[in-house]
């Protein structure tokens, strides 16, 4: 479809005129789009950060490999080699029971020093897998090695975390979908009112032979404007909120293995998403309402 410049400028003019003419309806659907996109933006930012946290946690999965008490120094170093030689092992770190105890005392206080008389802890290796998803396989392989008492990697906690994430992701998706649908419906209604108000005009246009695209174009533009204008406030609010959250969280998470998503480029990505959502619901909404009026 090649459109003449003056036709295009006419369509732009018409679309703005009708936004102004239907002031209250425009306001209503703009509010709906704004609220929707705001929630979508905040929710998406939250979801993506949760995902990031989940990945961080996943990447930080360690195995505690406990060594039998009977094992002597020679067999401990041979054990270390044996584990290192397994495929998919990233690192093996030895930690004696004395070291373990002193780190316990450090974190829980002097009461723990009672145990210095008779240390109940065991020597262990801390093993990390190259690919965290291989942790389970590695664990079962290590268990079979002689002189290994037990392997622990907190599988229950990890699975629970992933399950929680999965549920909240689904709930979020349903919520966002519902909101998007509502906003689309409102946009489509606004444009329907525009069309009804201009029914006679459209009828005459069709009778004298205006093409379908000619009739449809201003309404599509109107939908796009509603989407874009509705995206402005959410973009501003999400940017402002995320900036503050980022400034607050970033120094506090400095030493943690969990990190919040960097302000840039994340903020550009999420703002682009909000804008795109606005345009899509605008176009879709107007398309739905124009369709049946074109059959003159």
């Amino acid at each position, binding site marked *: 479809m090649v459109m003449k410049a003056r036709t295009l400028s006419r369509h732009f003019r018409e679309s703005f005129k009708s936004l102004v003419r239907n002031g209250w309806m425009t306001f209503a659907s703009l509010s709906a789009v704004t609220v929707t996109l705001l929630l979508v933006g905040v929710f998406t930012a939250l979801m993506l950060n949760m995902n990031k946290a989940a990945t961080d946690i996943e990447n930080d999965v360690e195995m505690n490999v406990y060594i039998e008490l009977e094992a002597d120094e020679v067999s401990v170093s041979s054990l270390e080699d044996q584990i290192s030689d397994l495929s998919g092992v990233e690192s093996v770190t030895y930690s004696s029971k004395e070291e373990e105890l002193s780190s316990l005392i450090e974190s829980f206080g002097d009461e723990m020093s009672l145990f210095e008389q008779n240390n109940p802890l065991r020597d262990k290796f801390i093993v990390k897998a190259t690919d965290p998803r291989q942790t389970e396989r590695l664990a079962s392989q290590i268990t079979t090695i002689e002189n290994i008492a037990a392997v622990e990697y907190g599988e229950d906690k990890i699975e629970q975390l992933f399950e929680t994430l999965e549920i909240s992701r689904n709930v979020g998706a349903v919520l966002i979908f519902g909101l998007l649908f509502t906003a689309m419906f409102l946009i489509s209604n606004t444009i329907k009112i525009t069309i009804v108000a201009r029914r006679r005009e459209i009828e005459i246009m*069709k*009778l004298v*032979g*205006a093409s379908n695209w*000619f*009739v449809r174009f201003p309404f599509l533009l109107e939908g796009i404007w509603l989407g874009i204008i509705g995206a402005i406030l959410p973009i501003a609010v999400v940017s402002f909120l995320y900036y503050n959250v980022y400034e607050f969280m970033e120094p506090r998470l400095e030493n943690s293995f969990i990190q919040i998503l960097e302000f840039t480029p994340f903020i550009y990505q999420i703002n682009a998403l909000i804008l795109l959502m606005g345009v899509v619901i605008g176009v879709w909404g107007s398309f739905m309402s124009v369709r049946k009026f074109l059959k003159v």
Partner: protein
Amino acid sequence: MIQMKQVYKKYSNGIMAANGFDVNIQQGEFVYVVGPSGAGKTTFIKMMYREEKPTKGTILINNVDIATLKAKRVPYLRRNIGVVFQDFKLLNQLTIYENIAFALEVIEEHPKTIKKRAMEVLDLVGLKHKARMMPDELSGGEQQRISIARSIANQPKIMIADEPTGNLDPETSWEIMNLFEEINARGTTVIMATHNREIVNTIRHRVIAIENGLIVRDEQRGEYGYEG
């Protein structure tokens, strides 16, 4: 020019408005379509500019079957047909000039052409001096003349009118008829559905009478043939 072959139209409520129309209309003819209300006159007219699509049959206009024409081609069909209605269908928020220019704008005519053509047709219908007035400042007859001017602005080969004098007093109706005569004299085919017996019997042309979805009479220089 216009050829209907075995055209049937059944509406979704079951009414058969066309029960096998067979008609040939030559370029430059003037045809009255008469018959009682609800007999199928309007359906006959509406099928010619594809406001209604026949259920069955062929309608050839310049050898193109408009019964099977794709929806997106319909606008281009309509650019060759001028349509005039009983209720004028003018836009009241636009001036007389703008009303005519609008019809040319939406088919993306060049601005220079729009201005030239609009003034030409206003001159033709004798209302050039009222170009800046609003439709509701004009009499019914004048408004109908504007709507005729609009319909010929694009220089169509065919002119279709559905009871164009239905809302006008007798004297004004004659003025409108003179205009149609003039347009027809320039070579445009005119097809006009009407209830006006006096006009049909005075300005003699071909008459097609429709009753119950059937063409019951088709005479050159025919009469209206119905009482009152």
